[in-house]
Structures are given as structure tokens and as C-alpha cells.
């Protein structure tokens, strides 16, 4: 009975993480399209939500969960998964508060690593896995997208530069709708899979499913729905950062950034090289700005984003470890997990509602951005 209660809480927390993953990462797909007016904002997030939902059904083969590559499988218990998810949700909300695009996957890995450290010690953490699956891709992927974005925008300007801006702008805006759709599908496939993997892992750990069992359909549909709802809610703060605060973007830059991002994500998927969609798209946006003119990039904003990337793993790990520690301090059973879940849900709701009430821009800031 106690195990079942913990399992229900883990499933609910995983779906809450999936929701934050959706609204946190909406910007990856729609920010450039909204910024260049390729699509109206509400239509763009609706389009992205539908394609994220569809993307979750494209591949149902749950790959070895990322967590299995960074911590010993035997150390993963439902309570560790729960604490890891709390760490990831907390970091997603914190970066959303400041409007910073950061990796939800790295937050999940950080949370699970921190909870595992607290539960089973450093011996249960696979250092090589963290280096190979998280740290090296975190350097290579955005750098590659940056370089491709910079080359691509120069190619695009070189080919279309002498044509009238009207048809060229319309053409690239249409291209952005297609490339944005590809990104939304890829995001739904990749990120909803992680939540499905986490829930399936908890079901297996609880003995509800056998190790060889397929992902239950209710898991697929609930994960797809949570990420789609999160996407439709729209992380407007991060959309604003990605779409207008890093660079002031034209439609050719938007298309180049999205094209660079889609190319890196899909080829990496093909070759089995793991990466963060957020970091790739951010790299593409910065590259398409720097390729036009180095000073076109607001390097202060870009620096803040990179600092958030560097902090993702340790910060989510610290919260994951603290959540696990608090659960153990309260007795470690179902009641303890329930208390931590209720405290976290209330804190998350307060943060979400309070920040959502704050206008995106103050009057003076809005005037400054309009004049920029």
C-alpha cells in the first residue's frame, strides 16, 4: 500500500515535470517564428503543442533512460526518482522565473544524480556517463549549432541578398513554419519519451510492470498530454529571451537558426549522440546573429544563459539531494514523500502564479525594447 502511494506520487510528479518541460521548452520551437512574425504567438504555441503531442507517439521504443547511464541502476528507487524530479522541476521554475533557456534534460539528470548521491553515495554515480552523456555534448552541441547558424545566415544573405526584401522575407517566414514544425515533432519525440521512461522505471521498480513489459498506453497518452499542455501554456519569458533579447532577428536569421538546430538535433539522433534541444537552438540563434555582425548579439544575455547552463547540473543535484534528505528526515515512507510533494506543489504553484501576474515588461523597458 505504502509503495503504491509513493508510485502514484512519482507518476504525478513526473507528469508535473513533463508539463514544466513543455512550457519551459516552448521557446525552442516558437521563439524565432514569433519574433519574425512568421506566426502569431497563440497560433505558434498551439501549433507547437499539437506537434509535441503527435511527436510523443512517433517512437514508443523507450531507450535506456538517461538516468541509467549516469547512476547505477540498482541505486534507483521510486523515492530517488521522486527527489530527482523535484530537483528538475525546481530548476525549470527558477530558470523560467529569470527567463533563461536551460536544458530540462540536464535538470532531470542533475536531480537524479543529486538524489542518488544522498541515497547511495558517490560510488553509485557514474562519472564517465556524466562526462560522456552530459558535459561533452553540452560543449559540442551549442558550439556546432552556433557555427552552422553563422555559416548558414551568410549563405542565405549571399544567395538572396540582391532580391527584393518582400518576397524573400515571406519565403523565409514560410520556411520557419516548416522548420519549427520539425523541431516541435523532434522535441515531442525526445522529451516526452523521458517522462515515459521515468514513469515506466517507477512502475518496474514497484513491481507493477515486469522488466520486459511495454510502455502502457495510459503512460504514453498522459505524457503526451502533459507536454502538449505545458507547451500550449507557453513559457513567454523564455520565448521573449530567445526571440528578441539575444539578437533582434529577421526571418532569414530565424530560418537559419531553426535549420541549424534541426540539422544538429536530427543528425545527432541518427548517430546516437545525446544533446539538449535548448542548448542547440540557443547556439543556432546566437550563431545566426554573430554571423551577420558580432555586435548584433547581446553578449550579456548570452553570458547569463551560459551561466545557467553551467549551474543546471549542480543546482538541480543540490535540490534533488535536499528533497531526498528531507524525505528521509521525515521518516522515508509514503507519508514523508507525500509531505514533500505537497510542500513542493504549493511552493511551485505560488511561484508560477506570482510570476505569471508580473507583466513581462515594465513600461520603460518596453519603450527601450521598442526603440532598440
Amino acid at each position: 500500500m505504502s509503495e503504491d502511494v509513493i508510485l502514484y506520487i512519482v507518476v504525478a510528479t513526473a507528469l508535473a515535470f513533463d508539463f514544466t518541460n513543455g512550457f519551459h521548452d516552448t521557446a525552442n520551437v516558437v521563439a524565432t517564428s514569433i519574433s519574425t512574425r512568421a506566426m502569431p504567438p497563440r497560433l505558434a504555441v498551439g501549433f507547437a503543442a499539437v506537434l509535441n503531442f503527435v511527436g510523443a507517439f512517433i517512437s514508443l521504443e523507450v531507450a535506456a533512460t538517461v538516468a541509467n547511464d549516469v547512476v547505477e541502476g540498482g541505486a534507483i528507487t521510486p523515492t530517488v526518482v521522486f527527489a530527482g524530479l523535484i530537483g528538475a522541476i525546481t530548476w525549470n521554475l527558477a530558470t523560467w522565473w529569470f527567463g533563461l533557456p536551460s536544458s530540462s534534460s540536464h535538470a532531470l539528470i542533475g536531480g537524479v544524480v543529486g538524489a542518488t548521491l544522498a541515497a547511495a553515495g558517490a560510488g553509485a554515480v557514474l562519472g564517465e556517463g556524466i562526462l560522456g552523456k552530459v558535459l561533452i555534448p553540452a560543449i559540442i552541441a551549442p558550439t556546432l549549432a552556433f557555427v552552422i547558424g553563422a555559416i548558414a545566415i551568410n549563405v542565405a544573405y549571399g544567395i538572396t541578398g540582391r532580391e527584393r526584401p518582400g518576397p524573400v522575407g515571406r519565403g523565409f517566414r514560410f520556411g520557419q513554419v516548416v522548420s519549427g514544425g520539425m523541431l516541435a515533432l523532434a522535441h515531442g519525440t525526445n522529451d516526452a519519451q523521458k517522462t515515459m521512461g521515468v514513469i515506466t522505471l517507477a512502475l518496474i521498480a514497484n513491481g507493477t510492470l515486469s522488466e520486459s513489459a511495454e510502455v502502457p498506453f495510459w503512460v504514453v497518452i498522459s505524457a503526451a498530454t502533459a507536454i502538449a499542455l505545458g507547451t500550449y501554456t507557453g513559457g513567454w519569458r523564455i520565448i521573449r529571451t530567445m526571440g528578441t533579447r539575444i539578437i533582434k532577428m529577421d526571418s532569414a536569421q530565424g530560418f537559419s537558426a531553426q535549420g541549424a538546430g534541426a540539422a544538429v538535433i536530427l543528425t545527432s539522433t541518427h548517430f546516437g549522440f545525446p544533446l539538449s534541444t535548448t542548448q542547440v537552438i540557443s547556439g543556432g540563434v546566437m550563431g545566426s546573429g554573430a554571423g551577420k555582425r558580432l555586435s548584433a548579439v547581446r553578449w550579456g544575455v548570452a553570458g547569463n544563459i551560459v551561466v545557467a547552463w553551467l549551474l543546471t547540473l549542480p543546482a538541480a543535484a543540490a535540490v534533488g539531494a535536499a528533497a531526498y534528505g528531507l524525505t528521509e528526515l521525515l521518516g522515508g515512507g509514503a507519508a514523508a514523500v507525500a509531505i514533500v510533494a505537497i510542500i513542493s506543489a504549493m511552493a511551485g504553484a505560488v511561484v508560477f502564479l506570482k510570476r505569471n501576474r508580473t507583466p513581462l515588461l515594465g513600461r520603460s523597458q518596453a519603450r527601450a525594447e521598442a526603440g532598440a
Partner: protein
Amino acid sequence: MIGTIVDTKELWETVVASLVAGVGITASFSVMIFSLARLADLRRSDRPLLAAGAGGMAALAFIVTAGGIILGMVVMLSK
């Protein structure tokens, strides 16, 4: 040391394929936009032969771009 943690051959293939795909798709789509814009101008100025050439180039660029998108879909579906 990095070579033992990350498959460097796989990494190199990812870098080259991403570069070719990202720059290639942008180039082919840009050629399509350019050709379509030229096509409209040439038809307005009543130069059918050149307009046909621009139309052919736009069609070729469309095929390359669409091929890239289909390849991307295949990669996603075959994961």
C-alpha cells in the same frame, strides 16, 4: 581520455553531417526563394526563356529541400 568516453568517429560524423545538412538545407531553400522571386520578375518583364530557367532552378531547389525534410522525418521515425 575523451576518446574512451565518446566515440570520436561518431562525433566527427555528427559534426560533418550536421554541417552539410544545416548549411545545405538553408542554401537550397534560399536558392528556391531567389529563383521564385526571379521567376516572378522575369515573367512580368516578358522573358519566357529565362523565366523557365528560373522555374526549373526553383523546382530543383524544392526537390533538394523537400528531400532533406523527408530524410529528417525518416530519421525521427526510425529512431
